[in-house]
C-alpha cells in the first residue's frame, strides 16, 4: 500500500515539475514534435491543385525519416476543404484550437486563404507560402504572413520584355481572366509595353464561366497580334490555343506559371501547347539539380502514393514549405513563433528548388518585406511535354 502511494507521489512530483515547462513551451511544439497545418482541396472544383498538399506531406515525411529537425518530428496536419471557404475556416479552427498548430504552410486558393487570414493573423500564428499569387497577402503586409508565390504582374512584365527585346515581337495582345488574377497579368503587360513606347493591340477579358472562346479569338485575330499573353485558367488557355489553331491564327503564345506544368498542358491540349512560352516558379521536372533529384528519390519515390505524378504541382508543395523548414532549422532547439519570424526575416537569397527567397524586417509600408520571391524562369514547351529552359532564373525587376 505504502509503495503504491509513494508511486503516486512520484508521479505528482514529476507532473508538478513538468507544468512550468509545458506553460513555457510554444503552442504546437513539444520535445519531440512540431505541429504544422495545411489545407488543400482533394475534392471539388480545384482538386487538381490537391497535389500541392500531398507534396508537402511527402517532403515532411522525408525530413522525419532523416531524423527531423533538432530531434523534433514535423507532424503534418493536412485536411481537405473542397475549396469551400466555410470548410477551410472550420478546419483551421478545429486544428488550431484542438491540436494547436505551431504554424501553417501553403494552403491552396485565394478565397479559402482570405477566409482564415484574419483569424491566423489576430492570433499571431505564422503562415508561410500561400499557394495563390494574390496581392491580398501583402497588401497590407502582415507580420506573420510570408508570401512565396511570385507576383503575377512581375511574371507578365518579364514575359513581355522577353517578347519585345529577345524575340522582336511588337504587337502584343492579352487575354485575361476578368478578376484580380487576370488583371494583375494585364497590368504587368501594360506597364512593360509602356516602357518600350508600345501599347497593347487588344485586351480581351475572359469570364470564368465562359465556354465558347470563338468571340475572344476573333478579337485577338482582328488585332493582328504577333504575341498573345494568356492570363486565364488552364482550361481557357488551352481552348484559346485550340480555337486559334482552327482559325489559322498563329501568334507566339505566352502564359503564366499557372499553366507551366507542361506534361499536364500537353495532355489536356492534345499536343497544341507545343511552342508556348511560360514563366515558372520551380525547377523543371527533369532538371539535374542535385537537390531536386534528392527530393525525387527521398520524398516522392519513398512517400508519395503510387499513382502520384512527379510534376510542378506536386513539388510546388515542397517549394512553398522550404523557407519554413529552413527557418525552423535556423531557430535551433529553442523554437518559438517570434524566433521563427526573426529567422524568416533573416532569409537572404535562400534557394531550394524554386526561385531565391528573401524577406526584410517587417515594415507595414513595404509590401516587399513579406514578398519572398522576385525571380522567375522562362521556359518553352517542347513536343514531348518537356521544357526548354530559355533564361534560367532571372530577377523580375520593376
Amino acid at each position, binding site marked *: 500500500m505504502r509503495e503504491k502511494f509513494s508511486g503516486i507521489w512520484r508521479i505528482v512530483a514529476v507532473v508538478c515539475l513538468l507544468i512550468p515547462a509545458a506553460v513555457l513551451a510554444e503552442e504546437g511544439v513539444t520535445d519531440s514534435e512540431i505541429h504544422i497545418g495545411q489545407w488543400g482541396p*482533394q*475534392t471539388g472544383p480545384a*482538386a487538381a491543385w*490537391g*497535389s500541392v498538399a*500531398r507534396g508537402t506531406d511527402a517532403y515532411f515525411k522525408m525530413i522525419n525519416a532523416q531524423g527531423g529537425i533538432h530531434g523534433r518530428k514535423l507532424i503534418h496536419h493536412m*485536411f*481537405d476543404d473542397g475549396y*469551400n*471557404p*466555410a*470548410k477551410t*475556416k*472550420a*478546419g483551421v*479552427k*478545429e486544428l*488550431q*484550437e*484542438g491540436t494547436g498548430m505551431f504554424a501553417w504552410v501553403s494552403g491552396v486558393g485565394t*478565397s479559402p486563404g*482570405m*477566409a482564415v487570414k*484574419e483569424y491566423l493573423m489576430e492570433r499571431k500564428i505564422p503562415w508561410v507560402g500561400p499557394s495563390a499569387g494574390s496581392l*491580398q497577402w501583402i497588401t497590407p503586409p502582415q507580420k506573420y504572413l510570408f508570401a512565396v508565390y511570385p507576383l503575377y504582374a512581375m511574371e507578365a512584365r518579364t514575359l513581355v520584355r522577353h517578347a519585345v527585346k529577345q524575340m522582336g515581337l511588337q504587337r502584343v495582345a492579352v487575354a485575361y481572366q*476578368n*478578376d*484580380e*488574377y487576370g488583371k494583375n497579368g494585364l497590368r504587368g503587360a501594360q506597364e512593360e509595353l509602356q516602357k518600350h513606347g508600345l501599347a497593347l493591340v487588344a485586351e480581351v477579358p475572359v*469570364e*470564368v*464561366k465562359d465556354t465558347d472562346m470563338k468571340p475572344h479569338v476573333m478579337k485577338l485575330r482582328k488585332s493582328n497580334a504577333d504575341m498573345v499573353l494568356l492570363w486565364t485558367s488552364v482550361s481557357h488557355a488551352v481552348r484559346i490555343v485550340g480555337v486559334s489553331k482552327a482559325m489559322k491564327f498563329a501568334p507566339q503564345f505566352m502564359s503564366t506559371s499557372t499553366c507551366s506544368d507542361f506534361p499536364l498542358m500537353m495532355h489536356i491540349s492534345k499536343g497544341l501547347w507545343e511552342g508556348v512560352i511560360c514563366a515558372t516558379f520551380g525547377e523543371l521536372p527533369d532538371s539535374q539539380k542535385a537537390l531536386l533529384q534528392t527530393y525525387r528519390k527521398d520524398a516522392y519515390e519513398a512517400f508519395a*502514393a503510387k*499513382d*502520384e505524378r512527379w510534376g510542378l504541382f506536386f513539388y510546388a508543395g515542397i517549394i512553398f514549405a522550404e523557407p519554413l523548414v529552413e527557418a525552423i532549422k535556423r531557430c535551433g532547439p529553442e523554437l518559438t513563433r517570434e524566433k521563427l519570424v526573426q529567422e524568416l526575416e533573416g532569409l537572404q537569397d535562400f534557394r531550394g528548388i524554386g526561385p531565391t527567397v528573401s524577406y526584410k524586417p517587417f515594415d507595414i509600408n513595404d509590401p516587399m518585406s513579406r514578398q519572398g520571391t522576385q525571380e522567375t524562369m522562362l521556359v518553352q514547351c517542347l513536343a514531348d511535354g518537356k521544357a526548354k529552359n530559355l533564361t534560367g532564373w532571372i530577377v523580375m525587376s520593376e
Partner: protein
Amino acid sequence: MDLKQHYYEDVSLFSSATIVFWFTALALFLALFPLVVKNYYIYLANYIAINIIIVLGLNLLVGFTGQISLGHAGFVAIGAYGTIILMTKVHLPFLPALLAAALIAALFGFLLGLPALRLEGPYLSIATLGFGLTITQIIGRMDLFGGREGLHAPALTIGAWHLDTDVDFYYLLIPLTGLLTLAARNLTRTQVGRAFIAIRDADIAAETMGVNLLYYKTLAFSVSAFYAGIGGGMYAFVLRFVEPEIFTLMMSIMFLAMVVVGGLGSIMGAIAGATLLSWLDLQLRNILDIPYLGDWLTALSQSYFSITGVSNIQFIVFGMIMILIMLFEPLGIYGIWLRTKIYWRTWPF
C-alpha cells in the same frame, strides 16, 4: 395524434408542460453552451444556425407550398453582399442593413415567384437554377460588388456591443434563429400557412376555394428569400469575407438536401436536417481518424481508388446516409422522430 378539444389548444405555443420543460432545458443548454466548449464548436454552432435559418425559409417554399428552388444560394448571396454594401457604402448600422438586405432578397424572391405561376416541377427548377447562377455572374462582373476579388465584412457593432468573437456572434445568432423559427411556425398556422399547404396539395382546388395563387405563390417565394437573405447576411460575418464563387449551385443543392432529409413540411424537420447535414459536411472528413474503420477505408482507397480517393470517401458516406434516410423514411428525420414517439407511447406493449 393529440386530440384537441379547444381552439386555444391549437394556437398555444406549447402543448404540454413536458414540452415547456424540454424547451426550457434546451434554452438553458444553448445559453450555457459557449461557456463549456471550445471556440471551434461555437463556430460550428453558428454555421449550423445560419443553415437552419436558410433551410427554414426553403422549407416554407418547398415543404409547405410545394414549389422548388435550385437557386437559393442566389438569395443568400444577395443577403451577404447587401448587408456588407449597405454597411460600408450607405453606412447603415448592422441590424437595419441586415433587414434591408433581406428585404431586397425578398423582392428578388417576389420576381422569381412570377414565372413560378406558370412553371411547375422540372421547368420551375431550371428557372430557379438559372436565377442562382445569374446572380453570382452579375455580382462577379460589377465593381460595386468587388468583382471576383470579393468583399471584406466591416467590424460588427450593435450599439455599444462589439461583436469580435464567435461567442459574441453566437449570442446574436441563436436568439435570432429562435425568433425566426417561431415566426415560421406561427406563419404555418395562420391563413397564409393553410393557403400554402392548399397550393401544395392541389393548386387548382385551392384556387377554386378562393386562394389567390398570384398572391400566395409570390409570397412564399418572398418569405423564403427573406430567410435566405437573413442567413446570407449572417454568413458574411461568420466568414468575414465573401466572393461570388462561394455561392455555388452545390450550395443550393445542399440546402434542398437539408430540407428533404429533415422532412418536407415540418419546422422541426428543417432544423434537424440543417443540423445533421451541416455537421456531417464539416465533420465527416474526420471519419478517417476513427480507429479500425479509418484504417480500413484508407486501405480500401489505396487498393481501388485514385490518389484523392480517401478524401472522396466522405462524400460516399454522406451520400449513403442521405439515401438510407430517404429509403427507410420518406418523411426524413422528422418521420423517424414521429415513429420513435409513437413506439415509446405504447411501450412496452
